[in-house]
């Protein structure tokens, strides 16, 4: 396959659309998640989804609903744990992780004769098997999430940056926290069915930390993260199509490569500017004192 014939294939077109949309949308939620040190939330929700599917199969309910219920309640419990026990975010996440896995294993073993075995086919999508409907759903849902996050940016950033102050100044902290975590739960549960859990949970984090290496403010980091996510998503699909490698893993590795590149470049830039500091430093000082 070459770069020109690639788009002749429908499944590559849809995969590309989904990758770019998830790349744009996941970091908008991810910025707040990363700020509050919950970088592994996406993965944790994925683990809980296993229990959700198991419950769905056991009770003969549509697994999508039980998954959503399981992940949203896990998000709520994480938040409550964080708020009311002495546990920090990562501990709440870890409890969710291990509880999610162990719960899934336990339930399957209790009722293995109900077809519960086949959990994973309810859980994991693959970028290359997305359909037109998937692409439309992801596009519409993704746009809604982006709009919500952008509109609430100052509020969500204030609770992520200094929660105690936000609470003292009357921001509805609990409600916003729940909104954020539930949005994350919905984004992860829905899009992992389409693009796979690895991809969505990695795109929640990697573009954001990449952007944070060069961003100078919360807002610029937010925007840079969206750009990085879309770039890595789109680029990964193209590279994987050219190189005969799986798309999801390629996107993630490309994201990590970009992170390393940006981090090293930023460090070098700092070093260089330090060494020739005589110049800009003086200029700086002058502009500052004249402004005084």
């Amino acid at each position, binding site marked *: 396959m070459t770069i020109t014939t690639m788009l002749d294939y429908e499944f590559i077109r849809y995969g590309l659309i989904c990758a770019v949309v998830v790349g744009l949308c996941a970091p908008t939620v991810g910025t707040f998640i990363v700020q509050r040190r919950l970088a592994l939330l996406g993965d944790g929700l994925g683990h809980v989804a296993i229990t959700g599917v198991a419950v769905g199969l056991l009770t003969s309910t549509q697994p999508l609903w039980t998954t959503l219920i399981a992940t949203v309640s896990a998000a709520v419990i994480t938040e409550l744990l964080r708020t009311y026990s002495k546990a920090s975010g990562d501990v709440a996440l870890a409890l969710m992780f291990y509880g999610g896995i162990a719960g899934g294993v336990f339930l399957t073993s209790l009722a293995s004769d109900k077809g519960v075995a086949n959990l994973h086919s309810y859980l994991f*999508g693959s970028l290359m098997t997305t359909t037109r409907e998937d692409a439309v759903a992801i596009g519409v849902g993704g746009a809604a999430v982006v709009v919500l996050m952008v509109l609430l940016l100052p509020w969500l950033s204030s609770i992520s940056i200094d929660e105690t102050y936000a609470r003292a100044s009357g921001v509805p902290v609990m409600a916003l926290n729940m909104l954020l975590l539930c949005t994350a739960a919905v984004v992860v549960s829905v899009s992992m069915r389409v693009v*796979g859990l690895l991809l969505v949970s990695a795109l929640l984090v990697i573009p954001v930390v990449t952007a944070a290496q060069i961003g100078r403010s919360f807002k610029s980091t937010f925007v840079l993260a969206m750009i990085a996510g879309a770039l890595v998503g789109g680029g990964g*699909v193209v590279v994987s199509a050219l190189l005969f490698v799986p798309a999801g893993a390629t996107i993630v590795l490309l994201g990590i490569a970009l992170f390393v590149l940006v981090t090293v470049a930023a460090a070098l830039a700092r070093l260089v500017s330090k060494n020739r500091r005589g110049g800009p430093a003086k200029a700086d000082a002058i502009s500052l004192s004249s402004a005084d």
Partner: protein
Amino acid sequence: ACGNEGSGADDGKLSVVAGFYPLAFAAEQVGGDHVAVTDLTPPGEEAHELELKPDQMAEVVDADLVVHLDDFIPSLDKAVEEYASDNALDAAEGQDLLTFDGEIDSHDDHGGEEGHDDHGHEGEEGHDDHGEEEGHEAEEGHDHDHGSVDPHLWLDPTRYAKLGDAIADRLAEIDADNADDYRANAEAFGDDLAELDAKFTESVEGSERDDIVTSHAAFGYLADRYDLDQIAIAGLSPDQEPAPARMAEISDYIKEEGVTTVFFETVASPAVAETVARESGAETATLNPLESLTAEDLDAGDDYFSVMEANLAALEKALN
């Protein structure tokens, strides 16, 4: 092994523990009324993912015979090695095994065959996170923990018949009183399989095409026996996320060669097969690799033979 009171001893039957469905089925056919067979993999469960629970371990330890397939269920292998090495029968013993290399198809510039990779997931603890892993990735479902040797030998009736004989020999050793019954049962089982083999040979030999496109390479023995070309999309495991280039290549091949059907397996997600089918204009159908039967299958009275007949019907339709 301690406490070898033998769970089957109560009613005078031999207790036989089998790793998963085809092994259990063969043991039942051969053992008849003289044995009580326990299938360690519950209906509908992925065999490779099995974590042995303490009570199952106790069954393995106490069993008169454990029928297992080396490299198929890692936790069972370890249990057998430690606690039942004297009472175990490896189903692969004495069989002419296939490796994934080359034998299965010719389309593999990049990783094709290999069948399965492993996966384990919900099963044992470990996996899981693990499970995750692939999970993360792939579409999932069925999978196999086998190295470069293809374990699905029961999909070739002639090899499966040899397993019946091997089980009969072992049972005869353990329970000399009923040796004749075991040999007779094995012979009958072999006859049924020979009949099935004949049906396959007949309908496949006269068919227009000999390409079978599957979502992963579980049907190597079937292809080997009946001279088919297995083309596996995801190559290895159904868990493995397929490379887009591979999917495009197979779509092109399907269009060029006029293949009509893309097969997926009962327990695996059909997404990859459906995508390739959509892209190439082919249809999808199921082939059952028979690693386990679901509770519904069993309730409906299905067994190895009826499922193989269904597979045959699907193949006939696709190849003609």
